[in-house]
């Protein structure tokens, strides 16, 4: 990869020669494989690669970004020139500062036991076919399984002396059983909804999921949901499983604490935040049980790296401590603006997009006890499991989630199964009603691959660890 590093250096030199006061160049080579089977058919077997270089510059305080798919001298130089020209054309005056970062050189590679690209596509197909066969059930109309693997090699060189190389490897898998009949449509998934779960790990992660073993339970639950009662409406106590809590953290804590959103730069698309810069160290986000940590060093996390896409070293930092806002997710630019922190959350989707403030791995820290204990202390409530739908307002206040399955809780025990469960709330009110958390043994991490932000749009892969959690006075059963 020495050639790629030289190309990045060429791009940075070309950008400086074109008038940039700062420049960085990121070359990315990405390869991914995915297999998807449905009802015994092989729906998709694909092998995708993409490579190119993206150059980001500051000219007169204005950003410019351009990219080129050609990993060669011409491509690097032309991308740098276009980026500088675009920055120069930006209307108005600009005054941007970047938080200082020490120049780093080094490399990092995701530790893997078995490289997922050493596993043949035929073996991946076979695993999916076995898993989807195990989903067979009279009421299951669609039984599907998928596996994915990705290797991304990226090189970052900056005009401040940073030169780092990283190879990040991801694997993931999931199964879905879709039951339909008499006008009712229900789905159950494992290990999580929305194309399963992924991890920065080798093939051992997929093997550890034991899709085939879990499939019969998933199919049985999908079928049972066809005949389950609809979740009633009301205000009650809810216990939420780790998977759904992961998305709750993502939407109602992760996005609102992205400092670019707080400053409004995402206003026209994904939205802003109910948080203000001055809320740091004073705003009560939730109950004293609420502790949220951003950790770019979590083993297996999809947001794990040695350096972010600005060359800032990975770190672990509190976001919420004992219910009080203690940190934001920052870039060098936003960190300089707020005068706190030093960035460390910048990531881009491949080589053709500009880095944005993205979640790394954002975790809800555990409490004590088990899921069973959380439920046993509820006289009348609902237990919610696995995400089905999600929506939250532009400032991340009003949210509404649906889950694939639920059970009523009566006198400390799970009762009848419920379908079409939803719950809704206002972020700080909801987190203020947090009254119990599961312990370390119940803490699970979910890897999401569908987080969207930016214009043009960018996808990001992030992980969230969470225990099951209990909240009081929650509105459930929203009806159309």
């Amino acid at each position: 990869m020495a050639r790629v590093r030289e190309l990045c250096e060429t791009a940075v030199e070309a950008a400086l020669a074109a008038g940039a006061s700062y420049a960085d160049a990121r070359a990315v080579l990405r390869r991914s494989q995915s297999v998807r089977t449905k009802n015994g058919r092989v729906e998709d077997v694909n092998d995708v690669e993409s490579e190119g270089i993206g150059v980001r510059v500051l000219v007169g305080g204005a950003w410019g970004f351009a990219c080129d798919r050609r990993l060669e001298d011409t491509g690097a130089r032309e991308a740098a020139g276009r980026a500088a020209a675009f920055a120069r054309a930006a209307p108005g005056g600009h005054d941007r500062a970047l938080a200082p970062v020490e120049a780093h050189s080094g490399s990092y590679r995701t530790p893997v036991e078995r490289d997922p690209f050493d596993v043949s596509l035929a073996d991946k197909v076979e695993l999916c076919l076995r898993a989807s066969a195990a989903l067979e059930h009279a009421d299951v109309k669609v039984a599907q399984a998928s596996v994915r693997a990705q290797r991304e090699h990226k090189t970052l060189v900056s005009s401040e002396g940073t030169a780092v190389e990283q190879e990040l490897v991801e694997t993931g898998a999931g199964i879905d059983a879709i039951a339909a009949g008499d006008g009712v449509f229900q789905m159950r998934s494992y290990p999580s909804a929305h194309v399963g779960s992924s991890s920065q790990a080798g093939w051992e992660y997929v093997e550890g999921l034991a899709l085939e073993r879990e499939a019969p339970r998933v199919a049985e639950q999908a079928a049972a949901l066809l005949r389950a009662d609809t979740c009633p409406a009301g205000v009650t106590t809810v216990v939420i499983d780790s998977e759904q809590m992961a998305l709750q953290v993502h939407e109602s804590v992760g996005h609102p604490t992205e400092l670019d959103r707080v400053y409004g730069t995402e206003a026209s698309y994904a939205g802003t935040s109910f948080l203000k810069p001055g809320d740091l160290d004073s705003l009560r986000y939730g109950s004293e049980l609420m502790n949220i940590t951003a950790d770019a060093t979590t083993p297996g996390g999809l947001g794990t790296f040695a350096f972010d896409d600005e060359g800032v070293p990975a770190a672990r930092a509190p976001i919420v401590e004992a219910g009080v806002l203690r940190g934001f997710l920052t870039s060098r630019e936003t960190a300089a603006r707020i005068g706190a922190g030093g960035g460390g959350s910048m990531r881009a989707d491949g080589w053709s997009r500009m880095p944005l403030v993205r979640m790394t791995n954002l975790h809800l820290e555990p409490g004590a006890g088990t899921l069973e204990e959380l439920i046993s202390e509820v006289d009348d409530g609902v237990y919610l499991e696995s995400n089905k739908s999600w929506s939250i307002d532009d400032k991340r206040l009003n949210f509404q989630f649906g889950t694939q399955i639920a059970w009523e809780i009566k006198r400390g025990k799970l009762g009848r199964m419920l379908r079409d469960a939803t719950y809704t709330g206002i972020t700080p009110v909801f987190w203020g009603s947090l009254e119990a958390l599961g312990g370390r043994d119940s803490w699970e991490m979910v890897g999401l691959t569908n987080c969207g932000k930016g214009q043009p749009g960018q996808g990001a892969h992030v992980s969230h660890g969470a225990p099951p959690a209990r909240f009081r006075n929650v509105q459930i059963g929203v009806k159309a």
Partner: protein
Amino acid sequence: MTVAAEAAAAALAAADGEEAEAVALAELSGLARFAASEVHQPTLIENVVVTLRIVRHGKVGLAVTNKVDDGGLASLVQRARAAADSAVAEPTFPGLAEPADLPDADGYDEATAAQSPEDQARQAAAAIDAAEGLDAYGFYTSGVTELAVRSSTGVDTRQAVTDATALVLAAGEGISGYAEQSAWRAADVDPASVAREAAAKAERTRDARELEPGAYRAVLEPYAIAELLGYFAYDSFGALGLLEQRSYLAGRLGERIADEKVTIVDDALDPRNLPKRFDFEGSPKQRVGLIEDGVARDVVWDRTTAAQAGNGHATTGHAPPAMMRDYGPLPFALALAPGEAGSVEELAELVGDGIYVTRLHYLNIVHPREGVITGMTRDGTFRIRDGKVAEPLVNLRFTVSVPQVLEDVPGLTSYTQLVNASDFYGERYPYGALVPAISTARFNITGSGSKPGI
């Protein structure tokens, strides 16, 4: 631009001797994104992506690359072969498409294709300058996209299209308004006009009030109804949703499911939309009636779902890009037929007492089979009283059954607007919905959220 055509031809040549299909998508675009009236995320993209599908003994494998030199294409062929060899033969696989006569549809404008980064920055500046004292957030983008399909069965087609969009959210303390324009001719997009519309809307949102949850009569501007229909379409207007019983239309084709004023088609040949001649298999685009005079008529098909249905269905030219095949065929050119109302003010008169919605935010499908969708209103929500647009409201959570929204439609405007439906993820493939503003007798509000502003 002939980059895609050349890449598709080269990829097919590299796969000489194979039963193969090469689909190439090339993009040259610029997007000047701005916030607080300052450009902050300017992105220039130049790329070509080739998808090679190889069929060996009935087994199908697929590989993708953006390395279109000899070495890259040789690797592409090798990886597609390996993928095919790893698959299992599927009896319902319809084979690769045969050549077909394609309809005319011109969506290419030389002046738009020629826009430079400086032009794009100037258009962004025009929007910023016209925001009338408010901060402007949004973007101006233009680009040219070329799609080419070549196959060993003789398909050999290409089309280059252009697109331009100006989008502005104008905001001040506690106020915000929204507007956008899209077209395949940049000359038809006026960023300053967009900014003025957004700013004027914003000025009316000061001191927004909350609203009690409940079912309200409503006026939905084109931005709002386009997004609502787009989400409904994912499950309900595609053949895969129909076959898997996710679609609201499953079991209801031929039945009245909406007000007789409601006609929804997918028509990529309409020159007012973003015209396309063929889909990602090279099959001709067809106009498909989805709901006609309130009656559910059909969904869109590709060759795979038509073969799986096995009851005489044929493709309607709606094969999606390879990496979106798990969605099945999708309508990329929705159009809601206009009505007779001369303005949104006339629609407000028809509503009498209700709410006025400019745009929606963060939609999601709650119950696909029932067409239930939730989301928020944003950047211009108002109360309608006595047939007039009245005081502003905070952003409202809605949870609606789309069929219920369409069940009783007092009126639609006589004019339509093209609303951009692409968020420009992945490779650029511009598409939009051509819709009027609409009024409905039922729009279910289930909560209140944040105030206008950023």
